[in-house]
């Protein structure tokens, strides 16, 4: 079984975000990138599947700062192939472009299962999973928090609001948007990553020119602007409710 986990690097929110001069994108100069948390879970889930039933796990990510760390860490977890994708990922690239561009690299790997994080904080034009599924012509299930493999199929576990859980059976090959791996991503000691750096090799695939069509156009990007100040309602429960009712009436929702 061939499993491919695809990851994105997203701005690390530990650093303060800044908008660039044009006011339509983040200023990349001060950004630090970190693996999208959901993608980290996707990688973990791929490794768990390998440990449980055997598989060949390939990890793919865009060739930008930080990619090697993620790849070598994945190798220490047990990933078999590490691939970085060179192409235009800065600035305007969107998920539509990304999904289209990686299609051929993915096809070449002949995956039975493609795992990717269900969402990322840079998903301005929808999440990557469904787009990939479309271009690869495969089924897609998102918000997955558990995967079982059973000959030619997978059974996914998906949680709905209100405590409902659904199990869905999907024919392979398929794309899954991972919300959470069955176990939180494991700790990889620095010595192990260093060892992987010495032994593992990273393959490189060059992606086609990006085609941005289908994505959204950003007119203005800005930090939340302070609105009118919130009103604190004080008093007994009864007074607070009366005041609330008045407000609701005032703004016309009651």
């Amino acid at each position, binding site marked *: 079984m061939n499993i491919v986990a695809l990851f994105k690097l997203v701005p690390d929110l*530990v650093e303060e975000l800044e908008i660039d001069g044009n006011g339509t994108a983040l200023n990349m100069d001060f950004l*630090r990138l*970190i693996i999208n948390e959901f993608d980290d879970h996707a990688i973990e889930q791929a490794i768990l599947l390998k440990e449980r039933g055997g598989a060949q796990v390939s990890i793919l990510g865009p060739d930008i700062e930080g990619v090697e760390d993620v790849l070598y860490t994945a190798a220490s977890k047990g990933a078999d192939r590490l691939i970085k994708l060179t192409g235009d990922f800065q600035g305007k690239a969107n998920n539509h472009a990304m999904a289209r561009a990686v299609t051929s690299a993915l096809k070449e790997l002949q995956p039975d299962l493609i795992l990717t994080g269900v969402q990322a904080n840079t998903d301005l034009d929808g999440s990557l999973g469904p787009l990939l599924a479309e271009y690869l012509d495969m089924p897609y299930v998102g918000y997955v928090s558990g995967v079982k493999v059973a000959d030619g199929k997978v059974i996914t576990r998906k949680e709905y609001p209100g405590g409902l859980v659904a199990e869905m059976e999907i024919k392979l090959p398929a794309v899954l948007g991972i919300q959470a791996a069955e176990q939180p991503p494991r*700790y990889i*000691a*620095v*010595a*192990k990553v260093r*060892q992987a750096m010495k032994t593992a090799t990273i393959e490189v695939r060059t992606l086609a020119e990006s085609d941005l069509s289908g994505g959204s156009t950003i007119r203005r990007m800005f930090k939340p602007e302070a609105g009118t100040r919130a009103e604190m309602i004080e008093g007994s429960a009864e007074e607070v409710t009366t005041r609330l009712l008045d407000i609701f009436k005032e703004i016309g929702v009651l």
Partner: protein
Amino acid sequence: MMPYDAVKSILVLIALLASFGVFGWRCYLALQGLRRGQSTPAFGGWGERIKGLIVYVAAQLRLFRFKAPGIAHFFVFWGFLTLSLTILQAILEGLLAYTNPHFVLPLIGNFGPLALLQDLFILCVALAILYDLYLRLIVNPERYKGSHKSQGLMVLMFIFTIMLTLAVTNGIRINLNDDLLQRYRPVSTLIGGLFAGLNPATQTIIEETAYWIHLGVVLLFLTELPEGKHFHIVTSIPAILLRNLEPRGRLPAAPEFEGQVGVKQVEQFRWRQMLDFYTCTECGRCQDMCPAFASGEPLSPKLLMMSLRDHLKDYSSASLPTRSLIGDAVAPSTLWACTTCYACDQECPLFIERIPLIVDMRRYLVNEGEVDALLQKTLANLGRYGNSFGQSERMRAKWTQPIQPVIKDARKEAVEYLWFVGDYASYHVMFSDITRKTAQVFQKADLDFGILYDAERNAGNDIRRVGEEGLFESLAEKNSAAMDKCKYNTIITTDPHTYNTLKNEYPANGNHHAVLHYTELLDQLIASGKLQFNKKLGYKVTYHDPCYLGRYNGIYDAPRRVIRALGCELIEMPRHGDRAFCCGAGGGKIWMEEQPEVKERPAESRVREAAGMSGISTLVTTCPKDLVMFRDAVKTAGLEGKIVVKDLIELVSEALELCKETVREQM
């Protein structure tokens, strides 16, 4: 029929051969495990080692830390040495009973003062044993819990019997005028007096019986030696001779076995470490001092040594080990409970060191990714941002913002002192104000100092002790690279943990600059008159010795001198100096999830101790982690209003009457 004396000679010979045979065989079996151990670096410093034998074996210095038991042991030990000659006499006179019936040891056998000494020791040892019996049976202190009680009692009975039978033999010989040195044996004379009324033939029978019991018990004891805690009689001498002479604060490098880091199997320990397993006397002094044990965590430093010994014995006798070291013999929760405070190793009369053992096993767990969620998150933060707070390194020097004049950037200009501020002092909200005060004090003393700004990383002391050796190395490399680019003479640190690793472990990275804790620097500045206080504070305070400052690096006096120079009266807590009770934060504990077993957190126990002293208003610390732990503990223990926790620098700043803008009351 063969005469009795001939039979006696033959029987003694057989008994000797048998008991020494059993003893030798058992020693061989017991020490078999050692042969599987890893090699140990060569032992240097023989002068120091021999001195150790005199101070710690002959004078038994560490044992007196527990006074009465120490004195009792001193007498038993010296009694054993002096009376070993009487044992030799007993063996030889038995062997030679037929050929040389009135044998006495040449020279010493006729030396009156020695006879007197031996006679007095019979009494002293017997009294010491009675005290030990009282201790074990009546007092039965907590520290004996889990030790082999019946074995301990059996050996006490052995020794008592040996003393009694010796006195009886000697006494009857005196009665029968058979002893040339009788006037040198008052104790034996007294015991002999009990039998004086019996007829000589009966007395001879009693004497012979006592002789046989004496020799029998001596030889039985010999065969029992390698079987338990009393093996220390044999192993303590090599253990003390070959004790670790490296600085305490320098952990040995992580052992590696084909891609495995740390120790997974008992045979991966060094043979020298294994020797300690056999040397432990189960006295429990270590356990008595252990903050993890006291707080109810599943760690007893004594039981840890005992389980390692049992495990090694099983391991070396079975062809296929069935129990795992980590998991079966030692629970991971036991390993994670240790704060690496060094209280146990400080106390052990036999210089047994278990922190390196614990860390080696932790190293294995960390490398296998077996860490709790909080620790995992912290390690990830440390790996990514170089601090345990998960904040950007760009924020590291944010605390400096209000300070005027601006603190020098040591990367850009030469300074006399490079101040390694440390994570807690840089990032912790509770501490940044105190860090600013430290800077103000340095400025007031006209100190030429600078900091590394955002090039500083966590120094890695506790990362190393958590077992993340690779991360420690990578941070140490980054810090060393940053410091190498600076021009400075001396490093100052706020944090004792940082101090320890910079001083003791960074030299491996080629950094050989002098390192001072800020309390040492203050002490120097006061002594040289560069720092003078306008105001005498007049507070009555007590002082907590941080583990990594006191026990690890022996800095006890400098902070105390500073406290006194401030015009404060210092009253010591019951547990102070090298017996200071750890706050519970060290060894990475501050980054781990709290265990449900915890009855009383070490920090709470400590602030209660301080608050329980009459007239004390302030608990002074010199470690940022202590301050954070204790202020928190004052709240959780409900002691607000009873005791205030302050860093020493706050008092210094107050005595200097430094400007108040950045000075906010922290309680």
